[in-house]
């Protein structure tokens, strides 16, 4: 893949930037240095100086990243993506073995639908790089930092807690972008306190969520199209959600594509 081709995709990512409120809780400022936690200067220089996790400062939008800093970061990301892929492949092979035994009842393993027989993984480097950039962008936020500190991985409940979309699964571009968007929205629940709101609890912030942004409810699961053959996998999160003081309840309740509530 030529530099220009890759750079054009980087251009895509930049033009597809999210709403400005997300920049309020960016961990890094425009020059790449860490921001203090206080409510910050608001963006709107967002248009002219767009910061991605990889760049410390304004980068030319016309693509060609010929500066050494960017080249090395790209190289690093590429290697990281390939390493992730190998790890993922190994994980799938391991899971496939044990999953065959467990296919009996409803629940699937934590790798819900990750490894189904015959399903190929995404290997297109350009796609993986683009997706990785989007993921990095979301992880480069104060909200994400606070989230992972507050909720260790083993305590995460599907449906309640945001889960990073799996870049190795085959999704359409639209589906993937939507997953990212929903993931980012969910992460906002962990935004640091803003100046005007008293509380910073999950429930407090949920009200601020723009529910119209949410089209699908399939937040943590593959989209229905992918999962038509495994309706049983939907039961797991539902039952656990009901046990909890589920702050995501309003979101889930609003539009239910799932079969009857258990």
């Amino acid at each position, binding site marked *: 893949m030529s530099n220009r081709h890759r750079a054009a995709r980087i251009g895509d990512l930049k033009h597809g930037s999210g709403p400005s409120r997300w920049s309020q809780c960016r*961990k*890094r400022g425009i*020059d*790449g*240095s*860490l921001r203090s936690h206080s409510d910050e200067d608001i963006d709107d220089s967002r248009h002219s100086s767009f910061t991605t996790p*990889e*760049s*410390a400062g304004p980068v030319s939008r016309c693509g060609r990243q010929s*500066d*050494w*800093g*960017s*080249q*090395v*970061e790209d*190289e*690093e990301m590429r*290697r*990281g993506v390939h*390493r992730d892929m190998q790890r993922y492949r190994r994980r799938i092979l391991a899971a496939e073995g044990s999953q065959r035994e467990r296919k009996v009842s409803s629940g699937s393993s934590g790798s819900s639908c990750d490894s189904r027989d015959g399903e190929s993984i995404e290997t297109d480097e350009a796609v993986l790089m683009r997706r990785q950039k989007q993921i990095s962008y979301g992880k*480069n936020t104060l909200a994400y930092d606070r989230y992972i500190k507050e909720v260790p991985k083993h305590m995460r409940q599907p449906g309640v807690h945001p889960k990073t979309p799996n870049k190795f699964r085959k999704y359409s571009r639209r589906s993937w972008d939507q997953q990212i968007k929903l993931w980012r929205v969910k992460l906002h629940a962990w935004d640091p306190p803003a100046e005007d709101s008293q509380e910073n609890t999950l429930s407090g912030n949920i009200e601020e969520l723009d529910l119209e942004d949410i089209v699908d409810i399939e937040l943590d699961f593959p989209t229905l199209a992918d999962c038509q053959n495994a309706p049983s996998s939907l039961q797991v999160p539902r039952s656990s959600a009901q046990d909890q003081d589920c702050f995501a309840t309003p979101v889930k309740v609003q539009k239910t594509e799932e079969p009857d509530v258990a």
Partner: protein
Amino acid sequence: MENSSEDYKIQSFDMDTQKLLKTALKDPGSVNLEKVSNVLVDQSLKDPFFSKEAGRICFTIVQAEAKQNNGAVFRRHLLNRLQQEFKQREETRKRSLQEWVCYVTFICNIFDYLKVNNMPMVALVPPVYDCLVRLAQPDALLNEEEVDCLVLQLHRIGEQLEKVNGQRMDELFFLLRDGFLLQEGLTSMARLLLLEILEFRAGGWMLSSTAHKYYYSEISE
């Protein structure tokens, strides 16, 4: 195991700067990393001794920043500064041979130390080769300073460079052979250095013990 600051060879900096560097090593998020990178680059261009050793402290700061907050601000500034200097290398060489030699030493040192996932930074390979090829040009071979720099870098990173781009290494060595054989006006030291590096590479980037004896046993303290 903690590296004492002597390991980073920062004694040539003034006390305030040393303090800044030490803080950068421990708590990179708290300092202005652009400033730190400029300080290190500037000194490397001036100080032949430091230019040979700066890679290590740079590497440590990069690691520290990555560990502390997953950042790469320092690395980015460092590389872009290197790139800037690279673009002006010909003027630099005209202005000051020492600064040019320091630059080459520094960029090679960075190439040696700053690895990405334990692999050399691919982005630096072409400019490093460009620098070495420049040093192998006829006008440069006339200066012992430049020949000395060239062979030092090849000793340190030649093998790695060859692995990532064997063809350019071959081309470089064509120049070195030509220079050794045909270049008039070379000092005998320059010719000795060239002969040694030719043997060194031919031996798989090491000298046989007899060759080593020939070249090095007579060096007195």
